């Protein structure tokens, strides 16, 4: 069994590696995106201030707190004050304010935007005779480039896994190569394992090279363990490859496969937090995003890269990825079909 898996695995690797156009696209696209974004967002390009508010909007008397009507400030309700304080430390929130209880606000003294938005808060608060208590939170800013890097790598991994497996299997089925394999002693599970292994190795290798290259060339942030990040990449790639196999299990048309894969790709790319955080989005959207493996890949990898999180901090995401992989692979193997008939 192993030699048959290795034979198909090796052949698929050679086929991909020698397809220079696809190979170049897989490497150049994320590098070009990173370079472009680095130029565009390397400085502080945002013009808007973001302030976290501990209370829900309907719990606050806006007349007593005219600060909430300040222009050019985006107010975001936060569920967890601890998480919000960490964001103040990272400069992701310019200020955090609690209008109930002790009437307190938190600001990062090294944040220029925090300085200005604090001035606005104190000025408006003084108009109503408020008495807000100030707390300082230290921490370095996280550049958008640091934040978006896992998103770009995840997106690249998503395209590579879904199309590199799903689309290719459909092509194999349509042109009769699967039928030819069926006439050999190869079992469906052996074929599937070989495809998963091949794409896994290639995707992880490419992703690792790009991450290290970007880290070295652009000095992007890495606060956590490389091994933990590799584990996330591994589980994430398995789940995405398995998803591609499930889509390709029975489809016989490349056009249909492309449509189905795009139907998965685009919502996943928009809702999983590749380009921007979903914090401002509605709860429904945030919950819906949890059905995508990419969401868990990005949540976990950002936690490792930006916060130095360990496995204990991200175990939920890892467990979800493992579960998704098992379910997708089981369904893919169950419904797999060699020929178009």
């Amino acid at each position, binding site marked *: 069994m192993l*030699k*048959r898996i*290795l*034979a*198909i695995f*090796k*052949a*698929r690797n*050679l*086929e*991909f*590696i*020698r*397809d220079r156009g696809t190979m170049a696209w897989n490497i150049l696209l994320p590098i070009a995106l990173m370079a472009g974004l680095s130029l565009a967002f390397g400085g502080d390009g945002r013009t808007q201030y973001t302030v976290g508010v501990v209370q829900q909007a309907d719990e606050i008397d806006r007349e007593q707190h005219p600060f909430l009507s300040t222009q050019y400030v985006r107010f975001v309700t936060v569920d967890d004050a601890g998480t919000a304080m960490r964001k103040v430390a990272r400069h992701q929130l310019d200020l955090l304010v609690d209008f109930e209880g002790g009437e307190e606000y938190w600001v990062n003294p090294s944040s220029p935007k925090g300085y200005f938005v604090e001035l606005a808060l104190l000025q408006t608060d003084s108009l109503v005779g408020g008495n807000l208590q100030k707390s300082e939170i230290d921490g370095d800013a996280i550049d958008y480039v640091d934040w978006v890097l896992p998103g770009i790598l995840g997106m690249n991994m998503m395209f590579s896994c879904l199309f590199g497996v799903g689309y290719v299997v459909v092509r*194999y089925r349509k*042109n*009769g*190569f699967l*039928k*030819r*394999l*069926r*006439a*050999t*002693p*190869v079992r469906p599970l052996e074929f599937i394992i070989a495809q998963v292994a091949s794409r896994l190795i290639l995707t992880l290798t490419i992703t690792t090279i790009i991450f290290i290259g970007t880290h070295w060339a652009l000095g992007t942030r890495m606060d956590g363990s490389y091994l933990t990040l590799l584990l996330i990449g591994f589980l994430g790639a398995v789940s995405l490859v398995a998803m591609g196999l499930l889509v390709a299990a029975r489809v016989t048309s490349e056009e249909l496969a492309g449509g189905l894969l795009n139907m998965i790709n685009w919502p996943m790319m928009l809702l999983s937090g590749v380009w921007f955080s979903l914090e401002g989005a509605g709860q429904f959207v945030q919950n819906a995003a949890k059905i995508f493996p990419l969401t868990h890949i990005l949540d976990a990898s950002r936690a490792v890269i930006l916060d130095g999180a360990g496995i204990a901090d991200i175990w939920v995401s890892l467990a979800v990825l493992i579960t998704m992989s098992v379910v997708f692979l089981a369904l893919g193997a169950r419904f797999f079909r*060699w*020929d178009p*008939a």
Partner: protein
Amino acid sequence: MELPRHSLVRANCVNLAAPTLVARMFALEARNLVKSYPDVLAVDNVSFGVREGICFGLLGPNGAGKTTTVEIIEGVTPATSGEVYYQGEIAGRRFREEAGIQFQNTALQDNLTVMETLIMFQTLYDRQARLDDIIEACSLGELLARDNRKLSGGQRQRMLLAIALVNKPRVVFLDEPTTGLDPQARRNFWQLVQRIQNDGTTIILTTHYMDEAHVLCDEIAIMDEGRIIASGPPDELLQERYKGLIIELPIDNVKDELAGIEHQTIEDLGIVEVLTEDIPGSLSRLSPHLFDANRIKIRQANLEDLFLDLTGHSLRT
């Protein structure tokens, strides 16, 4: 107990109450194969057996059901009903290990060389032939480093045959292997098939080229509309049906009715045929009815004539 050599259709009449006994007489046996699709019955209760070491031809026009029949036997298309026996057992894993298959159309992986492809396929089997022998037999020596996609038609067919041989098969399926090849490449391929058969390998060949079947096959079965309509060794089938030679006349060379002369008119081909054992006598009777006595052809009956007689339509239509 031995069935007559031309027993394929007759095999359906053999008492099949003891299937194992009958199945063991053949390297491969199809029993009551049926394949139906919503709008067509592609294979209609087909049964036949193939003895060890022979080249067996399954003939018929496009759409006759021969490829579907063979793919059911190969195990790549499920039958609606019926069974396939290999060496007396229901064909299963052992059959997959010992069968070599050349499909009519097979795409190979892109960016792989001939050698890499051969090694990949060889590794899928426990039973393996020496690659050097296959490369030599199929004349692939100079093509080993070439990309699969850059082979000519003849080279590609030799390559696909080589893939079918990588497991040292005991039975080889060749599905229309020479379609699209030029005459020289076809003849080279025939020689290759004959060499394989000389090594004792059983060959199942599907083709719509009657000359190919006549050259290569020890036994044939002719299919039409999903059924086997004749079977046996080609020469015996022809001798049984045709006593003598055929005089072939273009229709436009015939002046009037050929009254008193037994003949058949084939409108599709624009000819009139007279089967006779007395060539001089027939020619003298025909002469008064012809515009030009030189515009005639005398030939032996062939498998295409047989097919025409059995089905009423040409193989090419």
